């Protein structure tokens, strides 16, 4: 058996970093912020050992622009931060998207708004799925709910970012980043693809390449945006991911992602023990939102319950995915408080008329 089959115990943040290295990422630019700290620390230890670059930038803004530079060179590059830091990076994310550059951004969410707190939260949902910067664009957003899934999605995120030439994000939270779980790294895959657009010096052998997001002529900018929109449509068609648990006969389905989904799953199990036909729908991609699967589920269930560590940012997407045919209730905690399975169970019981 190869190294890929070894079972190891790792913290979420460190597993994300190791997965990125194994996926061929050799350039990491970041700025210190809690609770993503272990990711940067791991990179600073490991990158020199594999001939890579770990560089602590002077700001979140500089870090994302260093990512832009290395991405322009066609290399797999990554940064990580947490909510307030992501706000600062949004300028750069918009330029990366406008310049059609692939990269990986990790957001280990903490509670907000403002400086907020350093406990886990899911309050960046709207920011990263709806408006991760100015202008008309999207980024891929993956929401793992276990350390193993964090690792698997790092490989997928790099790959899809390069395929569609868009930035990709792994959206975790302080709980997932800090917890330890056993995991297996996948067998190393062929890394990357050819990037004829990269600015590496034309060597007097090809026309010059330009990485750019400026189009002063309105018709050219519209054309460019429409071309990108076509890629988004392909992404929406091909990249929706979700997981369903006990949904075949379910009447009440909890919709939750990331750490909230782990808690919701326990609550669903308890509800089943009490004879309530409960199930769980877990979005794995938040953009594109798994509308197809959730819409199909909406045809057969009586009630949805959205559970989040926010004040209900995902509720609208659940309603839109099901064309508002099914009532959507909400239960959430925020400020860094993690909902308990008992609290979620109580909400399910209420909806079941118990």
């Amino acid at each position, binding site marked *: 058996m190869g190294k890929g089959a070894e079972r190891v115990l790792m913290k979420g943040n460190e597993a994300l970093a190791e997965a990125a290295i194994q996926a061929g990422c050799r*350039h990491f*630019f970041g700025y210190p912020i809690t609770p993503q700290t272990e990711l940067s620390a791991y990179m600073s230890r490991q990158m020199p050992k594999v001939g890579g*670059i770990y*560089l602590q*930038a*002077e*700001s979140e*803004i*500089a*870090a994302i*622009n*260093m*990512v*832009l*530079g*290395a*991405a*322009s*060179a066609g*290399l797999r*590059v990554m940064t990580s931060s947490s909510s307030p830091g992501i706000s600062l990076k949004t*300028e*750069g994310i918009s*330029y990366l998207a406008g*310049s059609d550059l692939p990269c990986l951004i990790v957001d280990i969410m903490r509670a907000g708004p403002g400086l907020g707190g350093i406990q886990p939260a899911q309050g960046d949902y709207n920011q990263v799925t709806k408006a991760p910067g100015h202008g008309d664009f999207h980024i891929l957003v993956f929401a793992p709910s276990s350390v193993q899934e964090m690792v698997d999605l790092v490989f997928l995120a790099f790959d899809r970012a390069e395929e569609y030439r868009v930035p990709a994000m792994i959206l975790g939270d302080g709980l997932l980043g800090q917890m330890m779980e056993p995991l297996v790294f996948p067998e190393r895959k062929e890394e990357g693809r050819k990037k004829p657009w990269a*600015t*590496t*010096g*034309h*060597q*007097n*052998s090809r026309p*010059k*390449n*330009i*990485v*750019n*997001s*400026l189009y002063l002529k309105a018709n050219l900018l519209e054309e460019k945006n429409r071309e990108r929109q076509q890629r988004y449509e392909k992404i929406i068609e091909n990249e929706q991911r979700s997981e369903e648990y006990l949904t075949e006969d379910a009447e009440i389905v909890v919709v939750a992602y990331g750490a909230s989904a782990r808690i919701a799953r326990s609550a669903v199990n308890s509800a089943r023990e009490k004879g309530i036909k409960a199930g769980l729908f877990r979005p794995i991609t938040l953009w594109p939102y798994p509308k197809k699967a959730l819409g199909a589920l909406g045809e057969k269930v009586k009630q949805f319950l959205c559970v989040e560590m926010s004040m209900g940012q995902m509720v609208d997407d659940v309603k839109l995915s099901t064309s508002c045919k099914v009532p959507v209730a909400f239960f959430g905690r925020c400020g860094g408080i993690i909902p308990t399975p008992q609290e979620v169970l109580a909400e399910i019981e209420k909806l079941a008329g118990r």
Partner: protein
Amino acid sequence: MRKTVYTKSKGLTDIPTHYCPGCSHGIIHKLVAETLEEMDLLGNTVGVAPVGCAVLAYEYFNVDMVEAPHGRAPAVATGLIRALPDRTVFTYQGDGDLAAIGTAETVHAAARGENIVIIFVNNAIYGMTGGQVAPTSLIGQVTQTSPYGRKENHEGFPIRMCELLSTLNGVCYAERVAVNNVPAIKKAKKAIQKAFDNQVNKRGFSIVEVLSSCPTNWGMSPVDAMKWVDENMVPYYPLGCFKDKTAGKEA
């Protein structure tokens, strides 16, 4: 018999520039392009364009180019040179870009001694947006947003970037030049050559600050603008080398 006495540098594309009549950007573009061509660096160079008057520089230089967000060119160049350590990486930035919104990126790229060249075009005004007060506008200078003249107790004092940066250990070379007369242009070319020579030999961070004219936004003729550089800018921004590690010159 006809003899060719001048040809345009292969370092420039055939795209007509958008610069105003009498603006010094054209001269500075030419000096950079000639230097890259003469040093046989065109194929191995990645340039970073700023936001400001030179935003379209990515169209004009005949090298691979990246267009950076406003002020972030030194960070983008850092990403490029860390990814491509054997390439030549340079930024071309104006005063608003380099000395206002991008001050942190400039200072820290310099402090790290990134192996890049910065061509810093200082014309003491925001040109692209129509002539607002800049970090390098002179005391008393009238602009669109300092209509009563820049005041030291309001906008503060103009920043001398070469002097500031030359205090940093990471900086290999910092020189201020002008391009408002032929001898000055010749000196400017030498400084640009030296900066790229440092880069090729991996000596670290080099900056060449070029005092430049903006007749449009200064509201004067190109000839008067060239005189204005000598009469008003040079007294506050003295020309010369502030740091040159290769010559043992420290700040």
